[in-house]
């Protein structure tokens, strides 16, 4: 088992390296470098720029050096000192801006994953056990329908319905009273009252796919001889279902975590923009629109790294539950 985990960890290193290169390319894509943008900005505000400052910043980010050297400086700063550079638009180090938001993103994604799994498994089981029943057809139709609705459209519609029919304003993760307050029981309740809507909205798209996978897996298992044997032995239908076929059908579901996670994170970003949640989404969009490239690049890098770590964890989980994989 340890061997397997070590092997997976080693495999992750080139992936992480490649992701950092992609993030760096995105930083480099807009024409001009950050300092040109910054100069233009300062000049437009009538501020004079000291030549010494510029030279110091050029030196710090290695802007006069070849690209591979700039990459080296950037990644070395991140790895050794946790220095992601400076957000030029907000005039603060990137690290000050991102951790809080990244935390909320992670929390929201995890809650969504829990929600999706908790809902998808029972519905999938129901669909499979009652194949071709009305509930099965309804689940299948809803699955296709929610796949066709883009996340942001779902978010907008949900907000419209909440405000037009229930007279509730939605958006954000806290009421204004609690935004700056420290964590308390009241804040937690307030958080729960806000967070369920984005969780449902983000989850619905992935839910559909998971229900279908669970249904297909379980249908495969249900027709196997061991189920008939157990039934012949007089086992109760429910006990039989939970004990054998469901457990086997769950295994492939764990492996879907590898692509559900990127999907949930993508959904989280776009839904957060629409619902103005204090997560990475709105920050990333604003950074991209104002060409605040250090901030944008760092966010893309960290989001991708988190996803890769998540996938790694799901691989390890899969190996834990399924011996066939670790003894391959």
């Amino acid at each position, binding site marked *: 088992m340890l061997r397997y985990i070590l092997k997976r960890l080693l495999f992750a290193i080139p992936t992480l390296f490649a*992701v950092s290169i992609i993030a760096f390319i995105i930083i480099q894509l807009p024409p001009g470098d950050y300092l040109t943008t910054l100069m233009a900005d300062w000049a437009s505000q009538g501020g004079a720029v000291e030549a010494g400052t510029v030279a110091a910043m050029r030196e710090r980010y290695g802007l006069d050096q070849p690209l591979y050297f700039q990459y080296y400086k950037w990644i070395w700063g991140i790895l050794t000192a946790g220095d992601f550079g400076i957000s030029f638009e907000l005039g603060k180090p990137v690290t000050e801006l991102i951790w809080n938001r990244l935390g909320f993103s992670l929390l929201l994604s995890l809650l969504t994953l829990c929600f999706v799994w908790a809902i998808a498994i029972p519905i999938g089981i129901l669909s499979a056990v009652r194949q071709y029943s009305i509930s099965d057809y309804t689940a299948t139709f809803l699955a296709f329908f929610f796949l066709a609705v883009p996340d942001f*459209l779902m978010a*907008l519609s949900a907000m419209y319905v909440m405000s037009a029919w229930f007279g509730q304003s939605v958006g954000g993760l806290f009421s204004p009273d609690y935004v700056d307050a420290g964590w308390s029981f009241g804040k937690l309740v307030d958080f729960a009252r806000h967070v369920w809507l984005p969780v449902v909205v983000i989850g619905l798209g992935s839910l559909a796919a998971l229900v279908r996978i669970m249904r297909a897996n379980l249908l495969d298992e249900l027709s196997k001889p061991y189920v008939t044997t157990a039934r012949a032995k007089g086992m109760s239908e429910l006990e039989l279902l939970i004990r054998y076929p469901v457990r086997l059908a769950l295994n492939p579901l764990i492996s879907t975590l590898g692509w559900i996670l*990127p999907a949930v994170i*993508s959904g989280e970003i776009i839904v957060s923009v629409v619902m103005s949640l204090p997560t990475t989404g709105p920050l990333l*969009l604003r950074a991209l629109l104002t060409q605040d490239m250090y901030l944008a690049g760092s966010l893309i890098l960290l989001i991708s790294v988190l996803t890769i770590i998540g996938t790694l964890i799901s691989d390890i989980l899969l190996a834990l539950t399924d011996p066939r994989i670790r003894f391959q």
Partner: protein
Amino acid sequence: MTDITSLPPETGPSFNLPGKDIAVAGQWRLFWLKFKKHRIALASLVVIVFMYLVAVFADFIAPVDPNATNARFTYAPPQGLSLLLDGSFRPHVNQLKMTLNTESMRREFVADPTKPVSVGFFVKAPQPYHLLGLIPMETKLFGLTNPQVGDSLYIFGADRLGRDIFSRVVHGAQISLSIGLVGVFMSLILGVTIGGVSGFFGGWADLAIQRFIELLRSIPTIPLWMGLAAAIPVGWPPLRTYFVITLIVSLIGWTSLAREVRGKFLSLRNEDFVIAARLDGMSEIGIIFNHLVPSFMSHIIATLTLAIPSMILAETALSFLGIGLQPPIISWGVLLQEAQNIRAVAQAPWLLFTPAAAIIISVLSLNFLGDGLRDAADPYESVS
């Protein structure tokens, strides 16, 4: 949205044909026979063909110029089109009467049933136009027969500049639906080439390509697309932006196709008919294009169909965020930019729901169609 638009395959319905017919039926005939059994997919095919026709004949179908503004009718609500008037067939809409709500200081529109405005089919266009930019035309599918000042025809409402939402959605279909097709074409080229190399040659090329695909698929798509799309300079001409956006959204689509092609190559390259062709002295390229590609063509078509909706959704998402296509280009995503803030939506819900319905119907039908095609792509499976 990472590859989530495809659902796991389902066991398709089998079909009954006299044994003799089935034995001699060609690949495409088997494909069609099995596809026909999938009712929803068949219905979806009709819907899709209809939507693409609407896109092609958008100039003819849209009653007014999608960019024509009208300050008198900002945020005008949808006018219900009724076909009968006083018991006889006279299609009409009711004239909109504007009142000022003194409380909210907003203009409100009320339909006035005493003033029907007659609507006709094949009416003279407000201005002559060129269908598809080629054929000069002076007729529209429908429109006001005798437009007077104060008359309007907004069957799906108007936006904040008084532009007709229906005409805009019909024109938006041109961009939104074609992005799917162009993107899929790019994916096809990339996917077949790279997947083919990977599957046919194997070895380290295969290993490198598979690792690269895994890498691309492990990155959440939205941030990646956002980063790439945001780098497109604002000053670029619309056509170039369009192609770059298409390229960006097809960046992910090709990976699933490449995997499919590779899998097929791996399973087919040692089949008897390939070995026979090789022993006959056929070149490797010849084998690929004369024997291998035709044998998994139906799979490619199914995978491609399933890739179109994810590209439509990607374009819509990017344009909605304001980093994809920009006005004056009209696409469904650009139309949804108008619905970005919830206050606008609360005042004029048709800004959100009309383009949304267009997106959902097309994506839903394409998914059903792709599902049916995928089931049909393996005609031999359920026969044996």
